[in-house]
């Protein structure tokens, strides 16, 4: 909202500068309030000039030689405009200045006569689109005055945002009311003075409302003998200050009132309304209208329209039509002052993509009570300018008048809510200054003006009081230590531990998109009936909520590879989404991705690339730290390297379940992703891991019997899994095996091809006695036998 400071003063006389007024506006609840920098540098070399002599041009009959008094001198201008009149004042552009037409003014001989300056039209003076006639200025101003001063274009403009609940402040009077209240000044509302000298309104026009939901109130007034022409220069300048474009004196008057009151009006050429009959109804399916922006809009039955018996003449509250607009030929004008339901207007304007001043204001609720005032005010401005006649009486179709809201507000409760102790009289005073009527009592009875639809209850009253009292004057107290201590949910505590751990081993935390496109879904084989699709996605790339962290992680790895990072390690702890039954399910998942060099080149160590076991170790470490038991077995995920992937199983007391997978992405997948590396990614269901977390165990005595340590190396066929060998060792060792550690894996010349050798360090211990060498020997024999019989294992060494 632009607030021209001089215009604002028509409604409240302020004795503080605009910059200071901004601070008050901020503390009243307006946002981004600031004084705009001057916008009229282009008029720097334009001054006012009075015509003191007009003579025909010696060689060109279309031109005149005009002498203008510009205060300090008389200058000659060769001029072609039709309305150069002796004694009148016009804008004068001095040499060097650039005109609105783009032309730069210079002293030049035209047909042998030297032209020293240019008399300007509205177009040339950067004001509007009027190209033919010179812009007539107020002749009382001294010649030689700067044009921006004479048109008050040098007055400050405050720009600010008005919150959506304050439609009443989308007009200068609304803002003036707020400032008058805060400064304790008088609010000046211009009294419309209309001379109702025309025929009775009933003889001229009629209004029927078919859709009272969309249009609760419709008023009209008719003007006769109207001369439509350019509005006076001061009006045009004001509209420019307001950010509006001058059109003609009728439309401009309606826009002036719109800008003063925030209430949009519309003007129709009455002679283009069939039978003078206005019908407010819903649009018929397929009905169209060519609006004043020359666009044809297709309407739907949700749109409220203004029609005559022949068809639509305007989209209610949004935009008018070409076929009914006021133009130079117009003699009779019907002014519409109405109240349309804001939700209808908002939906229609949004659907059609029309951002008109009217739609903007109707969408935010205007004052249903202001209809007659704005009609009279507009009529009075036009009558003042054109001496037209005004119908006697106005049409006002208002089947269900809105009664002002009554609210009971208890001053004690208001103070309690605000944390203040404002005396009752002061509360009353604040409310009255804002235009509320208040009757004192135990509870104040507050009558809310119809313009303040946002004030619905006591809390709203408290806000009004608080705003005028000043939010900055409310104390800072706190009672936040009272009977409450803050807690984190277990999930957060566990997530945080894991994140800390992963950061500690050098992984970075990734946050990837929560959505993806069908191409990603397909590429990573994630199709499923449980996918959650966004019905109104911005683009297809973001149309499905992610069912997996895998695609995002792959992208992060490849991106950092491209950026030249040698050592790339990331994790993401985030949600995935799926349908579940009638509703939805969100699951926290942990993804880990590594690629490149685990050990970068350094003076103390050889570089080593990341491999499968780095990744596996991370997942094992996390689960081990949390106390969740997991086991791995070979996997068969299509997108992973066939021989380098595993399924992760969570082992619980009575069963085990698959919670994820890990491995090296298949080479063809890496290639499509644009990676030249091996990419290792794991993804596990973190929710299940979290639920499996065990608390700290009980203390176990450290004072135990001595351990017996044995090494065991066995050569077995290559295809036998280490986990199989380990389980044979464990099952034969029974409860006496304390730990089994694999310390070497060998394949090579020293053993037959197709075999591998695994070497273990086994620790035996009993919690009840000292073990004898003999019983350990016997256990180890059992293990060896079992390994031989199960896998054809050959003993390589023992100690």
């Amino acid at each position, binding site marked *: 909202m632009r607030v021209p400071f001089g215009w604002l003063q028509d409604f409240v006389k302020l004795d503080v500068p605009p910059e200071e007024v901004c601070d008050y506006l901020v503390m009243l609840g307006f946002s981004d309030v600031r004084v705009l920098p001057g916008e009229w540098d282009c008029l720097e070399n334009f001054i006012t000039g009075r015509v003191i002599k007009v003579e025909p041009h010696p060689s060109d009959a279309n031109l005149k030689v005009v002498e203008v008094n510009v205060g300090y001198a008389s200058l000659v201008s060769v001029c072609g405009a039709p309305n150069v009149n002796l004694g009148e004042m016009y804008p004068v552009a001095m040499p060097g200045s650039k005109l609105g037409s783009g032309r730069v003014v210079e002293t030049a001989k035209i047909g042998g006569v030297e032209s020293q300056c240019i008399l300007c039209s509205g177009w040339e003076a950067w004001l509007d689109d009027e190209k033919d006639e010179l812009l007539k200025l107020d002749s009382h101003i001294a010649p030689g005055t700067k044009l921006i001063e004479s048109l008050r274009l040098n007055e400050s403009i405050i720009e600010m945002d008005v919150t959506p609940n304050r439609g009443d402040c989308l007009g200068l009077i609304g803002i003036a009311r707020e400032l008058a209240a805060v400064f304790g000044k008088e609010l000046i509302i211009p009294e419309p003075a209309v001379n109702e000298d025309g025929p009775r309104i009933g003889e001229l026009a009629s209004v029927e409302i078919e859709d009272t939901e969309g249009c609760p109130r419709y008023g009209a007034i008719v003007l006769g003998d109207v001369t439509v022409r350019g509005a006076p220069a001061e009006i045009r300048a004001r509209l420019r200050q307001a950010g509006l474009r001058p059109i003609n004196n009728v439309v401009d008057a309606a826009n002036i009132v719109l800008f003063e009151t925030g209430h949009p009006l519309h003007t129709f050429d009455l002679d283009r309304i069939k039978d003078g009959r206005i019908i407010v109804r819903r649009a018929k399916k397929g009905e169209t209208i060519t609006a004043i922006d020359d666009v044809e809009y297709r309407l739907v039955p949700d749109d409220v329209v203004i029609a005559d018996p022949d068809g639509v003449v305007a989209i209610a509250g949004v935009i008018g039509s070409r076929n009914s607009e006021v133009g130079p030929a117009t003699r009779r004008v019907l002014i519409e002052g109405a109240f349309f339901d804001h939700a209808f207007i908002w939906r229609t304007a949004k659907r059609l993509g029309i951002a008109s001043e009217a739609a903007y204001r109707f969408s935010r609720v205007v004052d249903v009570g202001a209809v007659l005032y704005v009609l009279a005010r507009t009529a009075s401005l036009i009558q003042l300018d054109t001496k037209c006649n005004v119908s006697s009486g106005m049409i006002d179709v208002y089947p269900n008048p809105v009664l002002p809201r009554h609210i009971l507000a208890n001053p004690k409760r208001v103070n309690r809510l605000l944390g203040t102790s404002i005396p009752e009289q002061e509360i009353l005073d604040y409310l009255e200054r804002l235009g509320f009527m208040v009757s004192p009592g135990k509870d104040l009875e507050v009558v809310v003006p119809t313009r303040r639809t946002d004030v619905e209850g006591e*809390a709203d009253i408290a806000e009004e009081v608080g705003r005028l009292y000043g939010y900055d004057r409310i104390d800072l107290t706190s009672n936040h230590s009272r009977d409450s201590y803050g807690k984190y949910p277990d999930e957060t505590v566990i997530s945080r531990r894991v994140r800390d751990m992963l950061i500690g081993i050098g992984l970075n935390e990734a946050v990837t998109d929560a959505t993806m496109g069908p191409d990603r879904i397909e590429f990573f084989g994630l199709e499923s009936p449980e996918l959650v699709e966004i019905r109104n996605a911005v683009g297809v790339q973001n149309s499905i*909520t992610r069912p997996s962290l895998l695609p995002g992680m792959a992208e992060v790895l490849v991106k*950092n590879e491209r950026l030249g990072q040698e050592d790339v390690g990331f994790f993401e702890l985030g949600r995935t989404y799926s349908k579940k039954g009638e509703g939805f399910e969100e699951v926290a998942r942990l993804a880990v991705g590594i690629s490149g060099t685990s050990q970068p080149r350094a003076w103390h160590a050889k570089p080593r690339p990341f491999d499968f076991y780095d990744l596996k170790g991370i997942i094992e470490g996390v689960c081990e730290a949390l106390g969740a038991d997991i086991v791995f077995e070979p996997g068969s995920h299509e997108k992973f390297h066939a021989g380098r992937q595993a399924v992760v199983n969570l082992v619980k007391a009575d069963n085990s379940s698959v919670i994820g997978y890990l491995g090296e992405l298949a080479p063809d997948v890496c290639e499509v992703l644009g990676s030249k590396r091996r990419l290792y990614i794991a993804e596990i269901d973190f929710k299940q891991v979290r639920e499996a977390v065990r608390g700290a165990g009980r203390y176990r005595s450290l004072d135990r019997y001595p351990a017996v340590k044995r090494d065991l190396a066995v050569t077995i066929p290559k295809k036998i899994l280490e986990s199989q060998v380990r389980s044979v060792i464990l099952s034969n060792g029974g409860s006496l095996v304390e730990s089994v550690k694999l310390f070497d894996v060998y394949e090579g010349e020293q053993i037959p091809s197709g075999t591998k050798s695994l070497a273990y360090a086994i620790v035996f211990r009993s919690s009840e006695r000292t073990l004898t060498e003999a019983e350990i020997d016997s256990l180890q024999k059992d293990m060896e036998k079992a390994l031989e019989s199960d896998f054809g294992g050959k003993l390589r060494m023992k100690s």
Partner: protein
Amino acid sequence: MDLHDEAKAAQDAARGEIQSCSSLEDVDAVRIKYLGRKGEITFLLRKLGKVPPEQRKEVGGLLNEIKVEIGSLIESRKQDLKQQKYASGASAEALDVTLPGRTFKRGRFNPTLKMMDDLVQIFVGMGFSSVEGPEIETEYNNFDALNFPPWHPSRDDHDSFYVGDGYVLRTHTSPAQIRVMKSQPPPVRVVVPGRCHRRDTPDASHLMSFYQIEGLYVDFDVSMADLKGTLAAIAHEIFGEQTRIRFRPHYFPFTEPSTELDISCLVCEGKGCRLCKHSGWLEVLGCGMVHPNVFEHVGYDPRKVTGFAFGMGVERIATLKLGIGDIRLLYENDIRLLSQF
């Protein structure tokens, strides 16, 4: 040469030999040569019996003196040599202490999530409990229960993502307010950190997904002064004690009165610069007193309880604190950027 002269001669010889020892082994040889069982001094002491009784005392004293002296010379020479050996050994083993140490790798948190952790920790310290809610929310919890009128623009499918009949990707973490209040009687004191989604076109200050922390405090006598006190404390905790703050009126459907908290600009300290659009102030969070209609929706009696709620964009605070001009950088997942923090 009598015994006296022999003693003197041995003394001189021992002194010289000790001085010229270059190893602990040499020193030990000298000790054996003079003080050992068959050593020269030992030998001379044995001859003391043959000395006339009137000289015996004097010569005996002398011999003992010499024995003690040689012993102590040997000891001190030993110490010197040990010292020398240690010193030369240390220099042989000396390291270049300026070589870089064996580093261990250290990853970095995502700056937004780190900031969110820090913020939640402050609130927990003030007695707020942290809770989470679903991102796929009912329209009722996300809008209706929070007093958004049916026609409110943010319900529009231009602004919110819809995933099914009556379900929306939450546009703020505020719906968790509703869940918490419906699940327990007052008092309530919670913060809700989490991911939210809006149908914004990504630019320097907008994302389709972002993080928010919602806070709610409801009790039987909570005032706007409490809101101011609590949030002022938080702002000072986050941005430093020297930061000036102001509360100005604003509008949110679910609070009344509503206010926004501004802090003095972190760059220009209030003088006006590009960051604060020359206003000297930076908007940090929105807050207000819980709207009575919201209490009605969760079954609290608005005539009995009052409360305040607030919501802050974590990215906003992170970018302000870290001096990041474009919010999208927070989610680039670029190690070069992450390593800065």
